[in-house]
């Protein structure tokens, strides 16, 4: 019996090849998209879950409360971990993890390792990072020890002989010994780097005062709790203890610290400490993936039910011969299953082909192979079976309950229920497509807006050199000044977009009432050339100047935001007011117009600028756009001459700033691709339905033509119905899309208003696409010879 069903199914597929291609193809493409989304979501959900002790690993993070602000930071200071660990037996182990850049010199080769870590000895015992050589307990205990990952070890020393070798780091200042080689850290790990320096290198060698420091927040801190420990209970014990040992310090510095434990597996998804929680994006992509699967499934259901009418005769005959209703239902379900499994196989093939492109699109290696996690393939299989059952259920139930007598008489009508269902599903499909079209428009508009908005400073033609302010910098600057293509030079601690070192400082300033007000300010160290070079507007007062010797110790420039917080309406009123910040004490000498030091996703923060006191690690050059290559070569030559231990490193301000929008751009292009897929699959379905309904009305069309209808009349007749559905879909989709995108935009401090014309354009686009799809069939029918179509009936 099964064989018989199988035969019928295959022959049916072959006889209606066109439909089969639309049907199976659409389903397979939809499944492929769904599967890739599944891989993506699965990957995102898997962050830090691969550690065998993941359920006991927590990140310790600090809330810093000052009189004016509250910061929820992901970091801890240098000593709190060891203090807590010795006090609370619930903490089994702990380690600091510092993310940093380390420059490395191997023989005569210089490398800059942007993804370097420093960590404590417990790292390899707490986390499942696999050490290939070296001892997990000791590899990171001694100062001046370094662990390399396999790739980096091979890069430095060739395969397999890195252990025990020495390297020079930090401008050749320190020699470190390779005490371990580890597997490359997994992509879904938050703690990720190519090389790991023992953190005791900092506390024992580089800066022994760190051991006595307090509230110097630089590192992430991780703890491993004992198996029976309840993290909430432990967390509650921190407060009194911290009060006991640091109460005095907190009081005198006007700063309250509170400590929290975040489960390591939740950080990537939910924590908004120093990062954007990813869970929203995951939801969005899950929904988009489901949408596409739904669209594909709807196609399948629609084409199957539409075609089922043709199968009525077969059903009638089988019933006359003795088939039970159940047997027939089983047959149709079986057929649906065969088609879905077929689509599944094609989807597996397509996914294999698409995976590398998808990884590129996602900007990370979501999966190395689609078979890496068999569970996902099985899920896809389960989804196929599910679609098969849902799509097969309708024909199975409806067809199998057809009355044989009526069917064989050709008396059954085109069931109006079936038509209504199909229309409803088409509306649903196009609603989803229109939502995705509108979403794409809004996302692109917002991304464009962010990249083209006036930032309040000029990021063009700026070349930034992270020189680290080493010996020789002044000489090099003198040498560079001779080049006419270098238009200006400045030094600073920081540049917009997160370049250099970023500091926030608790400051005390005189407000408009003449009182001292505490305020936490961003702090840029700059020189007198920075403000003109970056084209930042001065609103009142003056820039720093070499002519005033006191500028380097007693002067501060504030942005508008800062003076507003102090209550000054007119920038000029803020000039001459007193300030205290860290080691500096003096007066405000200038007010600058607000400019964006961060992406437009973030609100502009109060900013203070002080004149650098020797720790400006960035050299900023304004360069002419002409002879850029030559200028770069020129700079490189002097760099190598003055900084022989440092690899030549530079970035352009504009590209660097826009890099902040990388994730938005990626999001936009992923969204665009999925929207296009959704529309494509919807159109496949529409094409199938249109050609089917045209086929069914062949006789009617023939008669109408003989009676004198024009070709246009026929096209209109056939298209009007479908276009009505698309129009309804637009009406349904618009408010939903508006609501969804409106919520999405709330994450951006500076955002577009959703323009009304986006809905119009999306609507016209949807109708246009649908029209082209339908009229392809309609025109064919309209110009066909009516005599032919009547004869074949």
């Amino acid at each position, binding site marked *: *019996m099964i064989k*018989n069903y199988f*035969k*019928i199914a295959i*022959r*049916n597929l072959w*006889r209606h090849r066109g439909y089969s291609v639309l049907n199976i193809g659409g389903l397979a493409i939809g499944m492929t998209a769904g599967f890739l989304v599944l891989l993506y979501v699965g990957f995102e959900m898997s962050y830090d879950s691969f550690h065998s002790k993941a359920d006991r690993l927590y990140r310790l993070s600090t809330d810093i409360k000052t009189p004016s602000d509250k910061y929820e930071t992901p970091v801890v200071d240098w000593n709190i971990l060891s203090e807590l660990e010795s006090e609370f037996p619930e903490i089994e182990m702990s380690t600091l993890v510092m993310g940093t850049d380390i420059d490395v010199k191997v023989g005569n080769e210089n490398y800059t390792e942007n993804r370097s870590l420093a960590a404590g000895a417990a790292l390899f015992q707490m986390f499942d990072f696999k050490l290939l050589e070296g001892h997990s307990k000791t590899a990171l205990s001694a100062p001046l020890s370094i662990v390399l990952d396999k790739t980096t070890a091979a890069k430095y020393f060739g395969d397999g002989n890195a252990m025990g070798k020495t390297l020079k780091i930090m401008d050749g200042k320190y020699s470190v010994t390779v005490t371990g080689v580890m597997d490359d850290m997994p992509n879904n790990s938050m703690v990720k780097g190519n090389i790991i320096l023992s953190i005791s290198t900092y506390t024992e060698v580089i800066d022994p005062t760190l051991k006595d420091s307090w509230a110097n927040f630089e590192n992430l801190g991780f703890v491993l709790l004992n198996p029976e420990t309840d993290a909430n209970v432990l967390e509650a014990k921190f407060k009194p203890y911290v009060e006991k040992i640091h109460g005095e310090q907190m009081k005198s510095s006007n700063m309250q610290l509170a400590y929290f434990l975040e489960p390591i597996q939740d950080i990537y998804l939910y924590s908004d400490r120093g990062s954007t929680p990813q869970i929203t994006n995951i939801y969005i992509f899950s929904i988009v993936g489901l949408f596409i699967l739904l669209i594909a499934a709807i196609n399948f259901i629609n084409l199957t039910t539409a075609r089922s009418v043709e199968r009525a*005769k*077969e059903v*009638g*005959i*089988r*019933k*006359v*011969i*003795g*088939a*039970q*209703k159940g*047997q027939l239902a089983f047959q149709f379900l079986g057929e649906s299953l065969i088609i879905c499994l077929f689509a599944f196989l094609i989807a597996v093939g397509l996914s294999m082909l698409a995976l590398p492109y998808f990884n590129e699109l996602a900007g990370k290696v979501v999966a190395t192979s689609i078979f890496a996690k068999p569970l996902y393939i099985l899920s896809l299989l389960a989804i196929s079976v599910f679609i098969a059952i849902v799509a097969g259920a309708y024909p199975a139930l409806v067809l199998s309950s057809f*009355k*044989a*007598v009526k069917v*064989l008489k050709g008396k059954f009508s085109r069931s109006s229920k079936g038509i209504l269902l199909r229309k409803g599903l088409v509306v649903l499909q196009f609603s989803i497509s229109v939502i995705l079209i509108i979403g794409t428009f809004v996302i692109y508009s917002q991304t464009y807006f962010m990249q083209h908005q006036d930032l309040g400073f000029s990021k063009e033609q700026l070349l930034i050199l992270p020189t680290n302010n080493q010996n020789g910098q002044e000489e090099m600057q003198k040498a560079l000044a001779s080049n006419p293509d270098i238009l200006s030079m400045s030094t600073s601690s920081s540049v917009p977009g997160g370049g250099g070192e970023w500091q926030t400082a608790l400051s005390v300033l005189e407000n408009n009432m003449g009182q001292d007000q505490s305020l936490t300010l961003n702090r840029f160290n700059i020189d007198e050339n920075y403000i003109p070079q970056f084209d930042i507007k001065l609103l009142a007062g003056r820039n720093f100047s070499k002519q005033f010797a006191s500028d380097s110790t007693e002067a501060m420039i504030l942005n508008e935001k800062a003076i507003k917080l102090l209550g000054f309406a007119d920038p000029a009123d803020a000039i001459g007011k007193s300030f205290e910040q860290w080691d500096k004490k003096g007066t405000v000498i200038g007010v600058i117009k607000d400019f964006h030091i961060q992406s437009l996703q973030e609100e502009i923060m109060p900013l203070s600028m002080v004149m650098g006191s020797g720790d400006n690690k960035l050299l900023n050059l304004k360069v002419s756009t002409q002879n850029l290559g030559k200028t770069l070569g020129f700079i490189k030559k002097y760099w190598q001459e003055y900084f022989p231990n440092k690899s030549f490193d530079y970035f352009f301000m504009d590209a660097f700033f826009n890099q902040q929008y990388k994730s938005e751009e990626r999001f936009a292009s992923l969204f665009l691709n999925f929207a296009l897929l959704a529309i494509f699959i919807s159109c496949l379905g529409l094409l199938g339905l249109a050609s089917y309904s045209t086929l069914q009305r062949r006789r009617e069309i023939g008669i109408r033509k003989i009676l004198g209808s024009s070709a246009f009349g026929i096209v209109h007749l056939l298209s009007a119905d479908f276009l009505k559905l698309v129009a309804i879909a637009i009406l349904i989709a618009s408010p939903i899309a508006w609501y969804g995108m409106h919520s999405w935009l709330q994450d951006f401090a500076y955002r577009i208003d959703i323009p009304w014309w986006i809905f119009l354009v999306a609507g016209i686009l949807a109708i246009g696409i649908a029209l082209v799809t339908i009229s392809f069939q309609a025109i064919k029918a309209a110009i066909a010879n009516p005599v032919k179509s009547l004869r074949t009936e």
Partner: protein
Amino acid sequence: MITITDLEKYYATEEVRTIALNKLSFKVKEGEFVAVMGPSGCGKSTLLNILGLLDDPDGGSFVFNGIEVAGFNERKRADLRKHNIGFVFQSFNLIDELTVFENVELPLIYTGVKPAERKVRVDAVLEKMQIMHRRKHFPQQLSGGQQQRVAVARAVVNNPKLILADEPTGNLDSSNGNEVMDLLTELNEAGTTIIMVTHSEHDAKYSHRIIRMLDGQKVTENVLAEFKSV
């Protein structure tokens, strides 16, 4: 074998209520060959559908092999049907996607016959109907007469006690029609009961008895040949 008494069937459409069968009564003995005749629309096909358990009467009684079957549910009807009744239609009603062999095999599949035995029985029937050489062809590749022979083969492959034929020669030319009638006669002589609807006096002559209908009622009965009960 068949006794119907006061059988009634109505069709209700929006405005008109059609009485398709109006208190129709007659008997058919086992082994008999009965022809049903009458003008178009008098209820012949309706009668045949009820006799074939494809449709339910609205009133009266229908006793089949001593069992009252009026009011049987669909499952029971299907069960009774597949073991006892074969159908032949004017428009052949073969499944286009199946070959000649597979079409004939189908009833055996539904009655649960084993594959090996199915092959033997289908081959035997195809041999008898002289279409063995066409067993791998699809219905569209056959002439009308050949298609009807396949349909007859399919009707008899389960050795039903009753064959219902609705204008079996209606779509055939006279020589093809005669071939089909000869086949039915052979089957009847071998013991199968046959009830055949026809418009052709010529075909009706092959039967033992002609029941003539008008407006859902029996008007006359002509006995053509002596039928000895078996």
